[in-house]
Structures are given as structure tokens and as C-alpha cells.
């Protein structure tokens, strides 16, 4: 197994993170946004693993397990919310979901 440079892995992680970020920002569909968020989480996890490998410490992998668990929880709640949104609004387009917009205070 070739020795992979930690730098390279970190760069990959950064690229993944930016891709995920761009996905969150540009996607209209909530499901795709969730997927992009997953990508970002995994990018962070990759960075942890790389860092753990670099310093020869188990902490990185422990953190990754945490992230994995958290991501699973997040996705389950997120998908539940997505289902509800689909039920109530018949759309998954975030552009149409603006119920939290500030009303004009003088109305």
C-alpha cells in the first residue's frame, strides 16, 4: 500500500467539502441539499481520518465514528422532515418554502 500523503487526503477532503457546499447552495430540491450536506460531513470525516493517520492517533477515527452516528441521526430526522414538507406543501423546492420570511412590522 502506497504511502498516501496527508496533504493529498486533506486536499481531497477540501474538494469534497466545497463540492458539498456548492451543492447545498445551488440545489433547489431539499433531498439533494441533504445529500450535499452528507457529502460535507463525510469530507469532514475524511479530514479527521487523515489527521489521525498523520499523527498516529486513534482520535481521528473515533471522531469519524461520531460523525457517522450523527449523520445517520441527522438524515433520519432530515428525511422525516422532508416527508412532512412534501405532505404539507406538495413541493420540495426550497425557493417556495419561505414561511419564515419576516413580515412587514407595520402591517
Amino acid at each position, binding site marked *: 500500500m502506497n504511502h498516501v500523503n496527508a496533504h493529498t487526503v486533506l486536499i481531497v477532503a477540501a474538494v469534497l467539502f466545497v463540492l458539498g457546499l456548492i451543492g*447545498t*447552495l445551488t440545489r433547489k430540491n431539499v433531498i439533494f441539499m441533504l445529500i450535499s450536506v452528507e457529502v460535507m460531513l463525510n469530507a469532514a470525516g475524511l479530514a479527521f481520518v487523515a489527521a489521525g493517520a498523520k499523527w498516529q492517533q486513534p482520535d481521528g477515527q473515533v471522531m469519524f465514528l461520531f460523525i457517522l452516528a450523527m449523520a445517520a441521526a441527522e438524515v433520519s430526522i432530515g428525511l422525516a422532515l422532508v416527508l412532512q414538507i412534501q405532505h404539507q406543501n406538495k413541493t420540495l423546492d*426550497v425557493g417556495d*418554502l419561505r*414561511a419564515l*420570511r*419576516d413580515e*412587514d412590522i407595520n402591517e
Partner: protein
Amino acid sequence: MHQYLYLIPALPLLGFLILSLAGRHLSRSVIAWVGAGSVCTAALITMGLGIGFLQTPPANGVYTQLLWNWFSVNRLSVSVSLSVDALSLIFIFIITFVGALIHIYSTAFMQNDRDYARFFASMNLFVCSMLILVMADNLVLLYLGWEGVGLCSYLLIGFWYETPANCHAANKAFFITRIGDTAMAVGLFFLFKEIGTLQIPQILIEVPQHFANGANNGTLIAILLLAGGIGKSAQLPLQTWLPDAMAGPSPVSALIHAATMVTAGVYLIARLHVLFEFSPLAMSIIAVIGALTLFMAGCSAMVQTDIKRILAYSTISQIGYMFLALGIGAWSAAIFHFFTHAFFKALLFLAAGAVIESLHHEHNIFKMGGLKNSMRTVFLTFLAGAASLAALPLVTAGFFSKDPILWYAWSAENGNAFLWLLAIAGAFITAFYSTRLMLVVFWGEMKTQITERPGKRMVLPLIILAVIAVAGGFIEWPHNLMHLTLFSEQVQKVLPAVVLKENLPSEFIFQGIAVLVTLGGVYMAYVLYYQEKVTLEKWRQSPAMLSIRNFLLHGWAFDELYDTVFVQPFLFITRINKKDIFDQLYNGIAQLNVTLSRLLSITQNGSLRWYIAGVLIGILFIITMQLL
């Protein structure tokens, strides 16, 4: 006797209370009995008091009665206590006696008025306040009476409140006198600061000591108090309210705006004579104001067409004589003129009221005429009053009171030719307009039908007043004619005697001039208004004469002047600031907040992506800050 002193003002007060609280449930005759009865009883008590005073004068010339301590703080201690000396007694006598006659007259005059009770309630309250004014032994109580009469004057001028003009006149009277009153209040504050007391006897004692050297503050105080007197007595420059005040019923004009209230200023100055004597400047101001007022108001009286306005201007003019006399130090002459004036002017107003009432509320003298035979009694009494006003020599009270003033205007230490000339011109003018009034109203042809005739209750007071207007002067004669000075003997117990110049010409010369001038005035009116009415017609055509006439008719355009200088600017300021400029300031602050909030709420648009971008920018910002 003097333990019943309080009854004199208390009786009218009681009348007021009964009439104001229960007046609407009482029958007219009960109201009349209560209203007139209270004042008549007070008059009777006053007579008793007066007789007692003359027979056995009190030790120090004063009756006093302490009712209760009003308030006392620190060194300011004011009590409600009455005191009556010769000067007060003269005023009390006039107020109650003339007041009683006018009340009796009013019971008939106001017979058909809807607010019979309100009228007598106000009249009684007036009499009470006026009595307190002249009986007060300290200036705060005097001020109480002073404001009280102002209130009653306001209520009675605006008695027929449905007409806006009457309300306007009432307000005007209150406002203008209030200006004087406020100056007077400041005068009281100043006096208290300087002397530390507001008790009149103490003031009279302390003033000479306090202002012994350098009386600048004394002069200032005197002028401030004088301003109060000027306002109440309708003297220049606060005279404009009195002609308008004629909007009230005629008995009101007779009592308040002729006999009593308008002479309150005279009383005030006489009461505090020591203070004024210490200030030559204030004395000169009083004299000059009096002289100018008597002349200017007299000129206006010459051209008026409303019978009551003629009398109003004449009142201003006659009070001008009183002020003139006060200003030259002829104290007792001033008080004597007040005394006779109260009778003949009340008489004139009451008689004018009878005429107006008979002619169906006609005020314009040129629509009257020829009443000489059809209203015999009114004519004769009116004649007595007008003759007294014109000061026909020897046969009228007016002569005996006015002649000394004319003489002292020249001969008193403070008198001079200027004052005398104005006074003598005033005498001519007075004679002129009195005669004009008589001729136009009672001679010539009848122009308006008589609708009703005055009843007994109206005629009786007229006759009594007419008798006094003719004979009242015999108690005080000029020194060169006869040594009978019953009146000034009493007055000089309180007020000092007049100081004359040295090396004077004979008094007869001045009397002669005065008599000639008076007769000249009568003759001129006779010529113009009876013999050759053509001249008058010719004058009416000439624009110059007409503009002079209008100028005088409107009282030397003082109303217009004040309107432009004071009233309009005040109204303008209040109008533009109606919304309160500070409110705009606070609304501005509120608006600013609203605007800022709007700006911020743009970011709160509900778009998820917008928020994420916001978070991102925030993070980048923080990281950048960290790196830097």
C-alpha cells in the same frame, strides 16, 4: 357694630349661594327678594355702620375684624380679616347703596329673562367680591376680591351667551384686565420680597422707612401695581375692553362698568398712597395716563352712535379725571369725583337701559329722538345725570367734584399747564357729548315706537339717583365759595391733603374758565345738533372729517393696533405649533427606528440558501479575522 362687619359681604355671598345652588327651583319673586334683598340688607347695615362711624369714630379710625387665618408660611402670614376706615366706608357705601338701587331696578329690568336666577347670583357674587376688595386689610385678600370682580364682570358681560359677540367681549374684558392683574401680582411678589409683609397697614408704615434712600424698587413696585389698576379701571393703554363690555345688560354696565369695579384702580392707588407718594415718577405716570385717557376717551365719546358706548367712553374719561387727581396728589378730590360719578353714571346707564328697553332694544341714538314728552320721568332723570356729567356749574354734583380737579391740575405741587389744558379740553368735550346725547335722544322727532314703559321698580331708583346726582355735591364746596367740606374731612383722616404751589392766581379765574368752557361745549353741541344741522351734514361729506370720525369711533384704532401686534402673532404661533414641535422630534426618532428595522428585515427573507450564504460569509469573515 363692627362685630357685624362680616355680614356686609356675607349677605350677598349668601344670596349668591342660595341662587346658584337652588336658583332654578325658585320662583321669580323669591329670586328677586333674595337677590335684591341681600344687597339691600347689606346697604342698611352699611348705613348703620356709617352713622356709627361718624358719631363715634373708632380710636384709630379703623374698624377691624379678624375672621380666620388664611395661611401662614414662614414670614408670610395672611389672614382673612376685614378692616374699614373712612376711605373703605365711602366705597362700601357706594357699592351697597348704588348696588341696592341697581338690584331693585334689575328685578324689573330682567323680569322676562330666562336666566333670572343666574343674573342675580352673579350680581350678588359681584357685590360680595367688590366688598371684599375694599374691605380687605391685606393685599392677598384684596387680590381675591380683585379677581372675583373680574370673574363676575366676565360672567355678566357674557350673560347673553348665545351671541358670540357677547362672549368675545367678555373674554376680551377678562384677558385685558388679566394682563393688568398679572402685573399687579408681580408687584405683590416684589413688595413682599422688599418689605416682607402684605398687610396694608404694615406696608404703609414700612414703606417710608424701607425706601427712605433710593426708591428705585419702590417705583417699580408702584408701576406694577399701577398696571393692575390701569387694567381694571380701563385706562390707557388697557382701556379697549370697556366699550365692548357694554354687551352686558344695562344694570351690569351701571353697577360694574360705571359705579364700582372700574374704580377699583382708584381705590388701589388711594389705599397704597404712601407707596405711590414715594415715587414721583409713578405719580407723574398716573397723572399723565389720567390726563391722556380723559382726553382720548372723551374724543371717542363725541362720535359714538351707540348710547351705551357713549357712556362707556365717558366712564373711561371720567376715571381719567380720577387718575389725574390721584397723580397730582389731590386724593380727596379723586375720591369725591368717584363718589359723585358713581351716582350720575349709574343713573345714566339705568336711564339708558330704560330707554333701550322701551324702544325695543334699540341702541343707536340716531334712531331714537323725541322722547322728551313721551317718557317724562326718564327724560328728567336722564337730564339730571347728563347735566351732572357735563358739570353744569353750581346745580350739579359733577361740578363740585370736577371743579377741584381742574383747579388742582394747575395749582397742586405736581400739577402743570399741560395737565390742566388736557383736563379743561376734557371738560369741554364732556359738556359737548352730554348735550349731544340729550339733544339727539330726547329732542327732535320720534323715530322708533315705544313698546313698553318702565315700571315703578325701575323709576324709583332713577329718581333717587337723580336727586343725589343734583344735590350730592353740596357736601363739599370749593374753598373760595363756601367753607363746607364734609367729604374731604372724612377722607383726610386716611389720605393726606393736597399740597399747593406758592403764589397762585385766584381760584376764581380758573373756575370762570372752567364754567365758560363747559357752557361753550353745551352751546357748540346745541348749535351743531339742534340749530344748524347743515354744518354736520357738510362735515359728513368731507372725507377728511369722515376718516377722523371713524378713527375716533373705533377708539383711536387701539383694537386694530393690538390685534396686529399681539393677537395675530399669538394666534399664528399657536396655530403653527398646534402639533407640538417636540412631538415631531420624537416621531422622527420613531420613524428612524422603523426605517432601520425595515432595512434589516430585508435579510430575513425566508430563503434557505440566503441564510446558508450568510452563515458562510460569516464564517469566512471570522476565519479571515483570525488569520489576520
